[in-house]
């Protein structure tokens, strides 16, 4: 058969290599800064843009979408061409993909510190950026499908299966979770409210972990590990079983983020059981990776690439066992809202994604620059600092999480809370936070060394822009393939079947939650927010309060005693978006309304330590200086009405005067405590919102707490 000659494009891979390295440092540096801020709040230098609550989403977005995102594309562009025996579909689209993605990251890096955020975790970016993400993702999809169509290799290797599942699922997740109604260019409200918003958000959030941090990286593992070890993949049938079971089961597991919340019990139970059933499919990937190294373990000791990969796969195995364990209700009752979860995600992000990315980089760069690694010693140094960094990070956060949770739950024999003052449970953790920061600093040090090492490696070689290869063209199928190999040679059918596989779980969980009334029993006393409270809620979202404060009292005696009546589904029907939060660095605020006088909130926002000595909350003094944009009120009322919030017709016209009247009353009240403040300041709206929280449902025995 006539062999065709073609060229692989390495320049696009090179671009993503550079972007991966640059963003790795940015993402981890921001992480280190906020790790320090948690015990030295002054490190924001009194600037709103560098405050913990705004940098935290920047850190998560930078690590997930910038560092790991670019890592995915780097590995994708290198492997897809070689696995398809074809040049990438379009060089132009490669460049649009690359620059578009970097532009999105820059937009995120600008808007998040400015407080332009939807408040939904890992989906904080506002609607114009959401649209951009969608467009760039379509470009990625075209590159994948286009290259598959012009491939010269009949069968698609397992790496490609994972790429297909990634492309399809991330698109579905992103679009469904980002359906929002714009109010202005920088502000929108999600169409879902309360419980429904929470379900959609964590279906998205959990599967962002699954289909952004897991499946594409499994794809990369299946390509780069056998390459680096020069060993055949352990088991093809294991690949098939674990691939399909993984993508089908993963999508159901989202509700495990909402155990003991106001989400209907049946949905919570589905979240638990599907998480448990995920152990084996996840471990299928680990086994296939580790057992591929059979007969190559002597190389693992010598080869830094393999060392990184082995630790990555082990971390993956640990995290995917821990995840299902955390989905058990009794474990979750202890771990949720604490640093345990922070430890869990960092074993995944630093160990699995981080170390696999570094392993790939150390393999890829010398090959693409046709040279040897500049310094094996530095690479080993990187490995050990990174490894120790993970160990210090995880151990300290595990202990911190368990400690705090036990303190929250500890009663005295008299039935009072042993630690009724929330802050006492936080201050106990400061030594752990210091160790965590040391761990983070170690990991970052290793990363900086790797960037230097890889830079010097590239400098010492010559970049191979294009690699020539030869293969026979693909002929039309004549023989009848059976079983799985049939679908392996049909990209479009593969894409359709995997789409069906990933849709089932989401559909089964979401449709009843949206349509069946009994899932969210209404509460007559729950009324829409007043215009000032609505504005205050947006201040709360923009300041990123949800980073540290939950609004979800779980049905435990310790929480009801500390915060008040546990949360009911009907309370959140006007919450676009929901603000349940996922971490309690500060206390829950669901029942905050009326616990303290207005003056307390004012003083506390200006300087938290005056009201709670030793508090690690940063001051939000700019709220006393920045004016509220009152003119946006009518538009917000109209938008909320479109989303189903029952504001009367024409209410938007008088919304500003209603808002001002309520602001006046707060100003007057503050005056009694000798606080003089202009009614247009953001703090007034925020106080109004905080004082509203939890007031709608009167309970038989109101409780209190700090």
């Amino acid at each position, binding site marked *: 058969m006539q062999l065709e000659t073609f060229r692989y494009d390495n320049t696009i891979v090179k671009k993503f290599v550079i972007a991966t390295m640059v963003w790795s440092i940015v993402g981890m540096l921001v992480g280190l800064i906020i790790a320090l801020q948690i015990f030295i709040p002054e490190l924001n230098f009194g600037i709103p843009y560098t405050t913990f609550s705004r940098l935290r989403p920047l850190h998560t977005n930078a690590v997930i979408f910038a560092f790991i995102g670019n890592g995915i594309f780097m590995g994708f562009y290198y492997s897809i061409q070689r696995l398809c025996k074809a040049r990438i579909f379009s060089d132009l689209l490669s460049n649009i993909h690359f620059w578009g993605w970097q532009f999105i990251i820059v937009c995120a890096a600008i808007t998040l510190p400015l407080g332009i955020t939807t408040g939904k975790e890992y989906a904080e970016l506002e609607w114009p950026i959401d649209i951009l993400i969608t467009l760039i993702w379509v470009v990625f999809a075209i590159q994948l499908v286009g290259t598959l169509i012009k491939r010269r290799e009949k069968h698609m290797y397992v790496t490609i299966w994972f790429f297909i599942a990634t492309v399809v699922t991330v698109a579905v997740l992103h679009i469904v979770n980002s359906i929002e109604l714009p109010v202005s260019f920088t502000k929108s409200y999600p169409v879902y409210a309360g419980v429904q918003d929470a379900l959609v958000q964590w279906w998205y959030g959990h599967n962002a972990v699954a289909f952004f941090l897991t499946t594409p990286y499994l794809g990369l593992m299946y390509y780069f590990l*056998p390459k680096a070890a020069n060993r055949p993949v352990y088991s093809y049938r294991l690949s098939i079983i674990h691939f399909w079971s993984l993508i089908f089961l993963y999508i159901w597991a989202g509700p495990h983020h909402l155990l003991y919340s106001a989400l209907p019990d049946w949905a919570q139970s589905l979240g638990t059981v599907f998480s448990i059933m995920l152990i084996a499919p996840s471990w299928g990937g680990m086994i296939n990776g580790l057992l591929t190294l*059979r007969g190559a*373990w002597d190389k693992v000791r010598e080869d830094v690439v393999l060392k990184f990969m082995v630790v990555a796969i082990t971390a993956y195995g640990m995290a995917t066992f821990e995840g299902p364990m955390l989905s058990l209700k009794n474990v979750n009752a202890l771990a949720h809202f604490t640093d345990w979860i922070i430890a869990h995600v960092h074993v995944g992000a630093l160990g699995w994604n981080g170390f696999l990315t570094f392993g790939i980089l150390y393999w890829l760069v010398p090959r693409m620059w046709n040279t040897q690694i500049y310094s094996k010693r530095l690479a080993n140094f990187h490995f050990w600092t990174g490894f120790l960094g993970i160990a210090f990070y995880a151990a300290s956060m595990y202990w911190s999480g368990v400690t705090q949770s036990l303190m929250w739950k500890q009663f005295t024999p008299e039935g009072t809370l042993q630690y009724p003052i929330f802050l006492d449970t936080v201050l106990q953790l400061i030594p752990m936070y210091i160790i965590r920061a040391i761990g983070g600093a170690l990991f970052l040090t290793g990363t900086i060394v790797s960037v230097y090492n890889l830079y010097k490696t590239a400098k010492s070689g010559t970049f191979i822009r294009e690699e020539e290869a030869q293969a026979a063209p693909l002929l039309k199928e004549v023989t009848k393939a059976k079983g799985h190999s049939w679908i392996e040679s049909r990209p479009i059918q593969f894409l359709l079947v995997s789409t069906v596989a990933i849709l089932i779980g989401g559909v089964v969980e979401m449709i009843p939650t949206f349509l069946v009334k009994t899932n969210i029993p209404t509460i007559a006393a729950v009324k829409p927010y007043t215009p000032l409270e609505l504005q205050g809620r947006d201040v709360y979202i923009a300041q990123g309060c949800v980073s540290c404060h939950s609004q979800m009292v779980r*049905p435990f005696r310790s929480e009801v005693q500390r915060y008040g009546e546990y949360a009911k589904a009907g309370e959140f029907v006007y919450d676009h978006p929901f603000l349940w939060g996922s971490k309690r660095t500060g206390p829950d605020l669901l029942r905050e309304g009326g616990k303290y006088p207005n003056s307390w909130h004012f003083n506390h926002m200006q300087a938290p330590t005056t009201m709670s000595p030793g508090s690690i909350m940063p001051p939000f003094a700019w709220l006393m200086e920045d004016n509220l944009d009152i003119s946006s009120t009518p538009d917000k009322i109209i938008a909320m009405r479109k989303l189903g919030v029952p504001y009367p017709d024409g209410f938007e016209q008088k919304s500003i005067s209603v808002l001002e009247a309520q602001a006046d009353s707060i100003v007057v009240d503050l005056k009694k405590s000798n606080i003089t403040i202009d009614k247009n300041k953001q703090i007034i709206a925020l106080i109004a919102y905080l004082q509203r929280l939890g007031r709608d449902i009167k309970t038989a025995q109101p*409780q209190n707490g*700090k």
Partner: protein
Amino acid sequence: MNPSNRNYSFWSFIILLLVSSSTLLAQTAVPAVEQGGDLGKVFHIGAMLFFLFVFVILLTLIAYHNRTDEEIPSIMKAWFWISGMLNKSTPIEKENEIILNHDYDGIKELDNLLPPWWKYLFYATIVFSAIYIYNYHISNVWALSEGEYNEEVRVANQQLNDLAASGAFINEKTVVALKDPASIATGKEIFTRNCTSCHGANAQGIIGPNLTDDYWINGGGIKNVFRTISNGVLDKGMISWKGQLKSSEIQLVASYVLSLKGSKPQNPKAPQGEIWVEPVVSDSLKAEGNSPKAL
């Protein structure tokens, strides 16, 4: 560079890290242990686990650094043998029997059997899930969140009632005002942490009333003040503190408040309520008879 020197600096770095972290850990553990109880035990266990973890890492490091031989140690050989059995892997020597006819950019695939333990683990999780759903949602033998909460509260209340019936706690009938400086000082601490936001740093009154004058809304004297703090006056905004403070702590803070009578703080809030006159047999006389240590 001399390799032994290099190892030396590597180890000193590790040891430095461990020493610095264990000092920090000691700080966390100490106050908690003092508080005693279950939590103290948990801290001990946590500390032990942490050091075990560090120890394992150290061992790994040592094993890694000491391996200079080219041979696979027998313990590893044994492990490979066991894992081969568990996984039912085809031995590497016979690999060519199960290698597939594909070549993806140089990558070959074997077709080993599914590891039996893995397969049965998968089945077991499916069985677990079926039982889980059945017990929670079909036979309802396991309580869902709400039922679990109600049971937790019921058990706790039962225990509390039993304890209260045995006279273990101070109540509004048995409480006496404490006068000794140590109790007043502790009472002041509790007051500063919990009460100043509404009553002011010197109890002069802000949202809540002035507590230093002769006027009381809900009655003065230790018994009334104890009851007010304990149960709260919900319509007036005074919250109930019995979930937050132990009865002995309420006694301390009430005693402190009563000790402020006539202290004339700055910016006092105007009097509210009625003048309170102590009954003939005053609490203070009784208190003199009781040593505070007896509490």
